[in-house]
């Protein structure tokens, strides 16, 4: 395991013609810490390093598999299989784009910013398209498999898609367990506007 991670770092050490140490010194010299945001934000974990290749070059398949497994193993499922919170609160989380920028108030709860990338409530026209539409997500049913898949996707999306562009809401501490449950309800609850197609 340790050997494999070292290998990943070694592979990531050569980004195009730019050596990792040149990159790291340029970054550290080019930014200042401000408010709650420090220079530690510039450091990469092995997954980020692996997924920083120009033009979607695919990396070593064995390393990718290893990173995917590590991501999967790190997922923390909610206690006593209780996946669903309140869809009303989840709607707020999905709508809120704030959190973790130096311009944000760290005292306030982070948002999930789901609308930046996904269509959800069909009545909301201001949705981005970096990710697929999640409208009518509840139609997939509430089987254990679906609940666990979706929770895992939200906790650490790289468990399924190693270089997914979606943030790791659970693993990176962007959303709390309660917020994740609320977002889950927003996706699955039959009363949620996500699943309410008739206007």
């Amino acid at each position: 395991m340790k050997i494999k991670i070292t290998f990943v770092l070694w592979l990531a050490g050569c980004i195009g013609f730019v050596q990792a140490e040149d990159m790291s010194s340029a970054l550290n010299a080019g930014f200042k810490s401000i408010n709650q945001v420090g220079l530690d934000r510039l450091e990469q974990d092995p997954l980020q390093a692996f997924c920083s290749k120009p033009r979607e070059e695919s990396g070593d398949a064995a390393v990718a598999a290893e990173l995917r497994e590590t991501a999967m193993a790190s997922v923390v499922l909610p206690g006593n299989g209780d996946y669903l919170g309140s869809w009303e609160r989840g709607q707020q989380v999905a709508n809120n784009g704030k959190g973790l920028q130096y311009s944000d108030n760290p005292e306030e709860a982070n948002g999930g910013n789901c609308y930046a990338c996904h269509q959800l409530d069909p009545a909301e026209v201001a949705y981005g398209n970096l990710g697929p539409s999640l409208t009518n997500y509840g139609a997939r049913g509430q089987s254990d498999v679906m609940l666990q898949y979706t929770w895992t996707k939200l906790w650490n999306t790289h468990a399924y898609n190693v270089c997914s562009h979606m943030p790791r809401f659970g693993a990176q501490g962007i959303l709390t367990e309660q917020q994740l449950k609320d977002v889950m309800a927003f996706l699955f609850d039959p009363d949620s506007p996500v699943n309410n197609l008739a206007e």
Partner: protein
Amino acid sequence: MSGSKIISVAACLVAAVMLTGPAYAEEAGIFDEYRAMFGDDNPAIFVIEEGEEFWFASQGPKQATLESCDLGLGPGVVDGAYARLPRYFKDVDRVMDVEARLRFCMQELQGRTPEEVDDHPYSLRGDLGTEMEALVAWLAEKSRDLPIAPGQEHDKEREAYALGEAVFYYRAGPHDFSCATCHGQEGMRIRLQALPDLTTHEGAAVAYSGWPAYRISEGVVRTMGWRMRDCFRQQRFPLLDMGSDVTVALQTYLAVTAAGAPMAAPGLKR
């Protein structure tokens, strides 16, 4: 349309947009209408004039002007200089963008301190605009319609391109974002804001040629350096330093990708 009228119409429209709250669709629509209304008029015109005044103003402990500042085409040559940046400067042995070079000239020629020069380079929302913004707007105007042609002959210029490309794809921070997350595919948008694909010539050309720009939503002229800083904020990174190697490298990457397209700045942006 007189200058003050343009500004007051702008203020009303922005206020109207704010009142409609989260109605993003209306917002996008109203900005398009507003942009169309301007036609060839751009409130940046006043900022351009101000920039020219700053260039010829005696400032700093040396009470000198910027008139002999060498932007790459020789001391005092401003016509066409912006379109050839970023480029390598022998006197400092590094690649510089327009802001890094102006910053250097302010210190060398006028004797101003780095602290003073870096104190407030970009205006806050609703501010009157800064000296840096005005100078950059004027210089960009002096390159209007000229092809974007950053330096790529010197080794350090090619290194800057390679660093810029690597930074563009560098994922880090709590959200794992890189520039490529938001600007690496065609036809993407966040909420309703269209995201140019900056990895293609077409996307980079449209984006690069229009900066510096008058930003309707903020009522000020913004520079490409500010754009880099603000996208890094959205990326959850710390504060990007004006004129740093990182910002110079990113702008080199964008300018080389956009090379050949005509400059059209100061532009008019959302």
